[in-house]
């Protein structure tokens, strides 16, 4: 049986919202390392999340703006629930409903304006996480840990770990929703208005460990979009996750 002491500590911090990028990456590594068959990890995660939510559920309700309900329902109706309209691109449509941050706006603009794409070649999808390569990588001095920020209601957590020389890294994710049928997630770096594909990936049981190569030192942001299984050379949808480098 695996030791869950450190995972438990990190999951408690995650549930409370106290986790920071470095530990976020460590947690993602642990979760992938324990694998989809670990019964304890998801139980611990759900129990802590539920416990934390119980604290919030006891608060007295606050009034919401008069138009928030209509804005939220309208935003939802501009897209279909994933369960009933399989195949629709997750990033479509609703992004205008939520005031984007400057960072996300920049990423959206960058992708939308992209004309030239220099593809480095798709890396071929999900790679099961060997423990030693990832741990060795993260154990290097000077590894940069950058969290992705989800947009438009995308769940899950993702972290980009970049090697000290800025030319390679790992994308680590957990709790990610499966993309719609016929779709895949595609990762990009964006420098100015030029996106570069890092490869396509489909999570297995919500988890991703993807080795990537690219010019991370020069890039402004990394982003993830939902694309067709063809893994296109040019992004066709708005990012669902963005990391500012």
């Amino acid at each position, binding site marked *: 049986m695996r030791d869950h002491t450190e995972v438990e500590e990190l999951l408690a*911090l995650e549930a409370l919202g106290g986790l920071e990028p470095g530990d976020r990456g460590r947690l993602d590594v642990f979760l992938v390392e324990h694998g989809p068959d670990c019964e304890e990890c998801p139980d611990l995660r759900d129990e802590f999340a539920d416990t934390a939510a119980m604290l919030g*559920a006891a608060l007295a309700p606050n009034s*919401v703006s008069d138009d928030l309900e209509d804005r939220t329902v309208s935003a939802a109706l501009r897209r279909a629930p994933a*369960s009933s309209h399989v195949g629709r691109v997750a990033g479509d449509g609703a992004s205008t409903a939520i005031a984007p941050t400057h*960072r996300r706006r920049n990423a959206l603009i960058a992708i939308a304006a992209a004309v030239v794409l220099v593809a480095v070649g798709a890396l071929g999808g999900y790679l099961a996480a060997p423990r030693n390569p990832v741990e060795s990588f993260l154990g290097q001095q000077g590894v940069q840990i950058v969290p992705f920020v989800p947009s438009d209601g995308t769940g899950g957590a993702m972290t980009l770990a970049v090697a000290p020389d800025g030319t390679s890294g790992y994308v680590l994710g957990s709790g990610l929703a499966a993309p719609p049928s016929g779709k895949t997630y595609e990762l990009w770096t964006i420098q100015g208005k030029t996106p570069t594909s890092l490869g396509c990936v489909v999570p297995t049981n919500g988890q991703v460990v993807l080795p990537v190569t690219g010019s991370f030192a020069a890039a402004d942001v990394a982003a993830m979009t939902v694309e067709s299984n063809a893994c296109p050379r040019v992004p066709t949808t708005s990012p669902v996750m963005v990391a500012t480098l």
Partner: protein
Amino acid sequence: MSVRDMEDARDRELLGRVRAGDPEGTAFRELFRRNAGVAKSVALRVTRSDQLAEEAVQEGFLQLWRAPERFDEARATVRRWLLTMVHARAVDLVRREQAQRRRTEEAAAQPIVLADPADDVVAEVARPSEAASVRAALASLPEAQRQVIELMYFRGVSQTGVAEALGLPLGTVKSRALLAMRKLRTVLVETER
């Protein structure tokens, strides 16, 4: 069946309708009406900003809309699942702000106080007992652990921010967070039974 169970049964029914396809958004709208208020309370505690709190609420509900199948029937209530998403979004939003240090300093000086159910008698019937349980659970924690919970969950302060605010080593903050969560889980789960 408790009032909370009945309320959750209604939320589950509505979520089921969203899962099955809710072309007019009728079930989704009712879920919003039933849960947006408390969701905003959670987000507001973290962000201290009405605008950011409503952004977190909206994004949390859109997350539910986008992937309703991710709700695990065997586990949390729909409301708690939703609050988990809203809280996470609120934390993301607040972390992006540069005022984290100022917020930390303010938060350290202001202990959180859960709303007295008597303050809001029109709130759902389930709320008083739920609030009382949470208050009792928090009260059962040593002060040092309760501070960590208050700063992290209710103020959105990161582990490093908590360490700075309380003048503690990071490792101590982590271990206190874990011990507190273990105890809260035990106490609150027992209370529910």
